[in-house]
């Protein structure tokens, strides 16, 4: 496959240095970290080393890191676990959350909770006035993502956390898209819990973490052998955890160069897009430097994404998790974007390996495809 990969917010290629660190554990994996013999103890040491690397990368203490199997699990654990002890209270999230936050919140309604979603403005920023008003109702948890996977828009989490704490609610943030792309500090964010994931930062699939305030009253999602201080049972995925740790160390070291590099690429891209009657979503506010989400006037549905794919550009038409369906992006709808335009949106998300030459090729192809699709539309009309 000689595709040019512009879909780093969906998943990233494993860094070879991370792989090198994982290989001994991938190839043998002898030893259950719970066992007391040397095989078990060396597995335990590897996990604890990784825990330190993960903590360091997000401004947390190692003791605050609870490993899970994926970001979805960490978000389910956070939402269900933090709401569990006050099930009669409402759960607040936002209209632009990933379904792995909003769906567990909905599932908690079976226990008597109510799930409500706070809206965003046209730029994709959370409506803090609406949040303040909703917090007059007893609330167990406020969960708002730090950076949106589709638009890249960064929320004012410190304010969200402050409002939640004042109202006696817990604050959680899904920071999966933020790790490695902005300076991330759990302590400064002032939230009670934060989700991060490995495969978005050139780490392997199969590892993620919920970073939690140790005093947090949270119920486990998985019950069993009592691993992760009883908060996440199940034999640890050592190789993935080791890789996650190594990826975190690299991401933390390289955050600044990542920002500089991808920002230059995006500026190049968006300068080109400006010539093509394109709407770029969230471009008036703080966004992740690697993300550009746009739609072309008059081109509908996934036709453009499909056309780009035929030209070997891997881009997304929405979040990977929802691209099974042809529903327009819920994020764009929440921002007030017209459904037809939302269906045709294209997300470009850069990684450190992308080049200026690739962006130039992409722009040339895009211009050509837009012209071709518009001619087809005109012929059909």
């Amino acid at each position: 496959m000689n595709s040019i990969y512009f879909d780093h917010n969906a998943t990233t290629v494993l860094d070879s240095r991370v792989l090198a660190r994982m290989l001994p554990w991938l190839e043998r994996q002898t030893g259950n970290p719970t066992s007391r013999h040397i095989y078990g103890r060396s597995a335990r040491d590897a996990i604890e080393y990784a825990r330190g690397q993960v903590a360091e990368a997000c401004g947390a203490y190692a003791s605050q890191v609870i490993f899970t199997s994926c970001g979805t699990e960490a978000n389910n654990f956070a939402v269900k676990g933090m709401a569990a002890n006050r099930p009669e209270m409402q759960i607040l999230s936002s209209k632009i959350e990933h379904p792995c936050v909003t769906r567990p919140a909905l599932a908690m309604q079976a226990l008597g909770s109510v799930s409500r979603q706070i809206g965003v403005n046209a730029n994709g920023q959370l409506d803090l006035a609406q949040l303040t008003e909703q917090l007059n109702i007893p609330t167990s948890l406020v969960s708002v993502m730090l950076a949106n996977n589709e638009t890249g828009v960064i929320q004012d989490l410190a304010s969200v956390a402050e409002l939640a704490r004042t109202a006696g609610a817990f604050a959680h943030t899904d920071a999966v898209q933020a790790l490695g792309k902005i300076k991330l500090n759990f302590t400064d964010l002032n939230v009670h819990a934060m989700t991060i994931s490995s495969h978005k930062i050139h780490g392997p699939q199969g590892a993620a973490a919920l970073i939690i305030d140790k005093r947090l009253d949270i119920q486990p999602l998985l019950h069993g052998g009592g691993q992760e201080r009883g908060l996440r049972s199940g034999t640890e995925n050592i190789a993935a955890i080791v890789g996650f740790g190594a990826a975190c160390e690299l991401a933390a070291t390289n955050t600044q160069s990542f920002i500089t590099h991808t920002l230059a690429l995006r500026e190049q891209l968006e300068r080109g897009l400006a010539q093509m009657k394109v709407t770029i979503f969230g471009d008036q506010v703080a966004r992740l430097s690697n993300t550009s989400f746009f739609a072309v006037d008059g081109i509908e549905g996934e036709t453009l994404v499909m056309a780009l794919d035929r030209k070997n550009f891997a881009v997304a038409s929405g979040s990977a998790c929802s691209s099974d369906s042809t529903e327009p992006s819920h994020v764009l709808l929440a921002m007030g974007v017209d459904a037809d335009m939302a269906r045709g949106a294209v997300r470009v998300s850069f990684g450190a390996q992308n080049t200026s030459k690739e962006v130039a090729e992409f722009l040339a192809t895009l211009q050509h495809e837009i012209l071709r699709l518009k001619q087809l539309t005109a012929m059909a009309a």
Partner: protein
Amino acid sequence: MSATIEMPVVKDTFNADGHAHEAQPIYLDYSATTPVDPRVAAKMIPYITEHFGNPASRSHPYGWTAEKAVENAREEVAKLVGADPREIVWTSGATESNNLAIKGAANFYSGKGKHIITVATEHKAVIDPIRELERQGFEATFLQPEPNGLLDLVKFKAAIRPDTVLASVMFVNNEIGVIQDITAIGNICRENGIIFHVDAAQATGKVDIDLEILPVDLMSFCAHKTYGPKGIGALYVRRKPRIRIEAQMHGGGHERGMRSGTLATHQIVGMGEAFRIAREEMHEENKRITHLRDKLLHGLETMEEVYVNGDLEHRVPHNLNISFNYVEGESLIMAVKGIAVSSGSACTSASLEPSYVLRALGRSDELAHSSIRFSIGRFTTEEDVDYTIELMRSKIDKLRDLSPLWEMFKDGIDLSKVQWASH
């Protein structure tokens, strides 16, 4: 971009061929986890290096390659256990499978009743979710097994109530290796309209499993007990008659809504390959392992005051759990550093509680503490077994030489009748 990762020392205890370095203890803890088969590792690595991609990404070929690999692996897993691939749901491991099966079925069918039957010797990953359901208003019966570890079907039948909705019985016990009569238990469940879940984490590649015939509704699997990677498992969910479960992890709607979350493609591929190898090689392998187990058993049971825990007939050959009487448990573990074994289930050995499984068989605390689980597998050799026998015999002799209890026993004193002075 360059960053250096300071590597912690990986205590690489195995050679490339899967055999222990000489200085390392011999690995006899296959029931805790198995080394990854080199063929499995070889199959996995391309999926973590070249064919990366999110299987749910539908708009580009990276996602398609991943999806195809995932579906091939699903077929391999299904084939080993006689299931339809559509009945296999990926999870992060057996703990998640057990949680999903038990909480998922109990919650979905709670309208039919809120009573659950299980066995006291189940893995914590079954017991703890049931305890959690008890806190939510369910009632549970924890049946005591017979002294040989097997479930008495009459007692099982007697435990059934009109509101019994779910039963969970493990196929092969992790500590003592006994095989329950899943067919008979399943038939009783069918007759009584009870959903039947089986934890088969310790069974794959060791016993034949044919879900076309077995009256089982939900079955949990994991890869890392069958020479596959850690962090991947599966839950079998019967389609005919259709069994419904409530999802425990919600999100993108992966796995037909039963389990959301990005799938680790290389791990799934590893599980598929591990289960393919198990299907093709288990019968030959079991013969070899039975021979090794018999040799180990013979070498150890010829000592005095040695008790095998669990039935020897209805048992996988990979497991031998033995109590060495008149030997203190901790000093026993310290004395046998040349072999890596477990003194209880791996998941409970962080604590010094006597094994609850051995206690349920009626073993005293002392015998439970002085027990060792030897679990052997694909890479265990004759030499490993010879060494283990020799090591155990000499160390047990030495420990008993130091034991006043052993001396009293040899002097013919009935220790159960001794009135100990209180301190």
